């Protein structure tokens, strides 16, 4: 109960507090209003007092109607207050209050300016009062609140002014008259006094005075009479002319000292000066002739002596200065001419920030800018320095030595091309300021040509190297081939003869396989030697790649590199090329296996083909001629090839691989040889760590692919007891061929040279001769065949060789020899060739 009461009391106290504060607040505001009101009233009273006592008539008009006016207003116009208030403004003036542009109210409301006009306002008595009327908006923000007009009675003042002026004029005239008279008298008096004094002084001082000035000027000075006689001359003039004073004064005319060409001009001035000295030049240059006849350049200053017809002239010998000036001007002209006409791009620029002060035409041409685009612009504004640090280096150079010679710098032309330029520069003085004179020598073209020449040389060198290596490899291959022929051939024969269950059969198989592998290497060498590739079949690379992808080799390769991902992109209508399918397949295989091996940690291997027409030669690793090409590219994302390695990658046995672990060291050499045999080109792009791309260009053929040859069954090439003579200088080969032929049901004999063959055939007849092309010593295959033909015209023969000596083989074939069979001997190959030749 008590608590509730307490709460109520507390509540009441709180409310009371608010009331009290409210009350206080209201009271305070009321007081403020009272004070403000008081102030306003005071101010109003003041305004009214001012308005009432002023002699300016003031009124307030709204909608062309008088709302209020002061006493002066009614006084000026003669109206009573009641007669004006509520009336329109027309009663005092027809133009006040109209909405015309010329009218005062209009101006006031539109410009909010104090407008002043002079109007004749209507007085109550019908007369006019000239008033100065000003008008202004009562409230600028609200024109509807009307205008305040102020009128000032002007008529009285005007009249007063008029009278005053008249009065004043009269007075002034009188004063003027008197003053003028006085002044004239005064002036006359002054003049008389002055003249007398002047003459006196002149008489007294002139002689001494002039002499003093004369002798002390330091320049040759003369006083001349109107008739050009020299009246006075000073020491300096004596020295200049070569005459003594006595010889000069009153005896000689100055005209004697003037060269003929300058005389007329000077006589004109001489006369003119005496008519009006303002029209004659005060100074000029002329050529002076002294007593000895020496010509001197003289700068002459001349003036009249006041009040006389005499003149005083000072002569300054400027011969030396003129010479120096001429020399300087000539030198400047020469420089300027040389600068402009120089075939060397030349500029003058400031040291501090490289502003161009002068540039010649050659510089403009070199940089592609016009002169206007350069002058007064700084090199950095135009980004002319390709490497601004080069400029800093040059500036340091100047600072140290004052010049630089043939520094290689790089400049950017307007078109953005970077030029290699040799710069020679020197600090010279130009208009009193140190600036840089720079001469440039554009060596961009020379460098480019040099680089091109070097690239060409490198390519040539590479080609020659490959050629030389090829010859070497070819020689080795030939000898090895003969050796291998025996190995492979006999092991094949052995297997034929051997019992199927023989325990040593697998050794023979191993021998044969090793032999075959060796033969494959030899085949590579031959490819490299480029004697053995017959690019005669029509091939489509898409097919070749797809065939290769089906081979066990391919599958094996990617089981060894499981992390390598293969992507292929084939051009659907890939054109055909002329080529050797076997070698092309090998080329693809080599490139793919290289690519896979370049990515031991996995990556993407891309095989792509496309047709491409090159309309101009391409400079790359190879120089590729224009034409239609089928492009084969194999790329990897592997280790890449270092620049030094790049020059050797196609060389045989230049391998980065561990010898024996994979490859023969001939992979890329074979690729190179194959491409060259196909009249194709190779391009290699590689970046270390990023991968390599091999791009092969093969010229296209428009021939269609021939139908696949159906493999021939053995029965097709079995012999029917015909007699064959084998001619070969290598015993093993000879024996092998003989045995193979006998195996195929031929009768066979052999001889070891061409000479022996001839001897043998004198009394024997052979159905066919198997003739080795290269035999040493003695006759080779061609010569042998020629001689045999003499004994047995139309003698049938086939030619065998380790590699194709095409020229000689073709000659033999033209004489009648048949097919050419490449070693090593394989029974099917030789059997088929023999059979066909016999049946032909």
């Amino acid at each position: 109960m008590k608590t509730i009461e307490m709460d109520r009391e507390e509540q009441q106290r709180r409310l009371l507090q608010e009331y009290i504060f409210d009350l206080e607040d209201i009271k305070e505001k009321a007081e403020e209003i009272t004070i403000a009101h008081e102030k306003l009233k005071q101010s109003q009273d003041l305004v009214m007092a001012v308005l009432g006592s002023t002699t300016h008539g003031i009124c307030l008009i709204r909608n062309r109607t008088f709302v209020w006016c002061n006493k002066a207003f009614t006084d000026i116009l003669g109206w009573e207050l009641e007669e004006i208030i509520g009336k329109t403004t027309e009663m005092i003036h027809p133009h006040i209050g109209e909405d015309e542009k010329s009218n005062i109210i209009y101006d006031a409301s539109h410009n909010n300016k104090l407008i002043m006009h002079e109007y004749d306002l209507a007085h109550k008595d019908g007369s006019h009062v000239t008033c100065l009327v000003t008008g202004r908006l009562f409230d600028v923000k609200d024109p509807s609140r009307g205008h305040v007009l102020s009128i000032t009675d002007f008529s009285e003042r005007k009249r007063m002014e008029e009278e005053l002026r008249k009065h004043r004029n009269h007075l002034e005239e009188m004063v003027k008259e008197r003053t003028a008279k006085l002044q004239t008298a005064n002036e006359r008096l002054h003049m008389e006094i002055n003249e007398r004094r002047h003459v006196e002084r002149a008489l007294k001082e002139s002689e001494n005075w002039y002499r003093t000035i004369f002798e002390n000027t330091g320049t040759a000075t003369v006083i001349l009479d109107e008739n050009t006689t020299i009246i006075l001359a000073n020491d300096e003039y004596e020295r200049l002319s070569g005459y003594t004073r006595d010889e000069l004064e009153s005896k000689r005319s100055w005209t004697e000292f003037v060269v003929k060409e300058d005389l007329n001009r000077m006589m004109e001035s001489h006369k003119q000066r005496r008519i009006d000295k303002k029209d004659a030049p005060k100074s000029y240059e002329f050529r002076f002739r002294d007593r000895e006849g020496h010509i001197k350049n003289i700068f002459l200053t001349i003036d009249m002596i006041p009040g006389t017809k005499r003149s005083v002239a000072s002569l300054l010998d400027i011969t030396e200065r003129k010479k120096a000036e001429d020399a300087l001007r000539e030198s400047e002209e020469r420089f300027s001419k040389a600068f402009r006409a120089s075939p060397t791009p030349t500029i003058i620029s400031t040291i501090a920030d490289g502003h161009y002060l002068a540039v010649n035409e050659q510089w403009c041409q070199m940089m592609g800018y016009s002169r206007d685009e350069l002058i007064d612009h700084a090199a950095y504004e135009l980004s002319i320095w390709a490497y601004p640090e080069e400029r800093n280096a040059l500036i340091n150079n100047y600072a140290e030595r004052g010049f630089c010679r043939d520094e290689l710098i790089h400049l950017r032309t307007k078109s953005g091309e970077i030029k290699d330029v040799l710069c020679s520069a020197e600090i010279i003085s130009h208009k009193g300021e140190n600036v840089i004179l720079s001469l440039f020598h554009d060596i961009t073209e020379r460098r480019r040509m040099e680089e091109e020449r070097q690239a060409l040389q490198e390519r040539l060198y590479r080609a020659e190297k490959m050629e030389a290596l090829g010859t070497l490899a070819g020689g080795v291959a030939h000898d090895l081939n003969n050796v291998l022929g025996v190995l492979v051939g006999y092991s094949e024969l052995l297997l034929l003869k051997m019992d199927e269950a023989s325990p040593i059969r697998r050794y023979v198989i191993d021998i044969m396989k090793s032999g075959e592998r060796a033969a494959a290497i030899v085949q590579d060498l031959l490819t490299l030697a480029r004697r053995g590739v017959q690019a005669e079949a029509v091939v489509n690379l898409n097919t070749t790649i797809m065939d290769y992808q089906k081979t066990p080799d391919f599958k094996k390769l990617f089981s060894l590199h499981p992390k390598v991902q293969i992507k292929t992109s084939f051009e659907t209508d890939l054109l055909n090329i002329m080529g050797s399918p076997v070698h092309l397949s090998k080329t693809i295989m080599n490139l793919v296996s290289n690519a896979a091996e370049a990515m031991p940690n996995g990556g993407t291997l891309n095989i792509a083909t496309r047709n491409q027409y090159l309309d101009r030669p391409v400079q790359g690793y190879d120089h590729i001629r224009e034409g239609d090409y089928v492009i084969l590219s194999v790329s990897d994302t592997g280790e890449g090839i270092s620049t030094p390695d790049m020059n050797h990658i196609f060389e045989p046995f230049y391998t980065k691989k561990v010898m024996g672990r994979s490859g023969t060291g001939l992979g890329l050499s074979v690729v190179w040889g194959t491409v060259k045999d196909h009249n194709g080109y190779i391009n290699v792009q590689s970046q270390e760590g990023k991968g390599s791309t091999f791009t092969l260009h093969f010229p296209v053929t428009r021939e269609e692919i021939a139908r696949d040859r159906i493999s021939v069954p053995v029965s097709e090439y079995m012999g029917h007891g015909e007699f064959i003579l084998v001619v070969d200088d290598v015993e093993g080969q000879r024996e092998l061929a003989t045995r193979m032929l006998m195996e195929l049901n031929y009768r066979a004999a052999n001889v070891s040279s061409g000479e022996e063959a001839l001897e043998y055939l004198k009394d024997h007849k052979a159905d066919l001769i198997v003739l080795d092309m290269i035999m040493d010593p003695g006759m080779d295959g061609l010569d042998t065949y020629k001689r045999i033909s003499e004994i047995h015209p139309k003698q049938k023969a086939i030619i065998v060789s380790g590699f194709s000596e095409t020229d000689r083989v073709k000659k033999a074939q033209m004489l009648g020899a048949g097919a050419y069979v490449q070693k090593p001997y394989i029974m099917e190959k030789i059997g088929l060739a023999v059979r066909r030749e016999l049946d032909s």
Partner: protein
Amino acid sequence: MEIQKILVVDDDKPISSYLQRKFAKLGYTVYVAEDGEEAVKQAFSNRPDIILLDVKLPKMNGIEVCKQLKADETTKSIPVLMLSAKAQSFEINEGLEAGADKYLCKPMSFPDILGEIRAYERK
């Protein structure tokens, strides 16, 4: 002592704003807090020369505010004038025990309040 800064603590907006206006007109710098926690915060941050403190406040009442300020070395010297509608003698005692320098009971006119402030200025 010189008084320039006054902290007015009252949750009744008409009262606090009236006091603020009146004191400001007289040239004082006036801070207003509408609850107890704010009052303590401002007492520390603004360092008023005197505090007019209502007792019934949200968050923390005036008694507690006073106790805290008087317990701290930096604020204990600031005079605290309690201005409350609680006018029972035990309530007044409670306020004074909490450390208030003066206990004023609402309602009070502004001149009376000013008089109290002036009294401190003269000390």
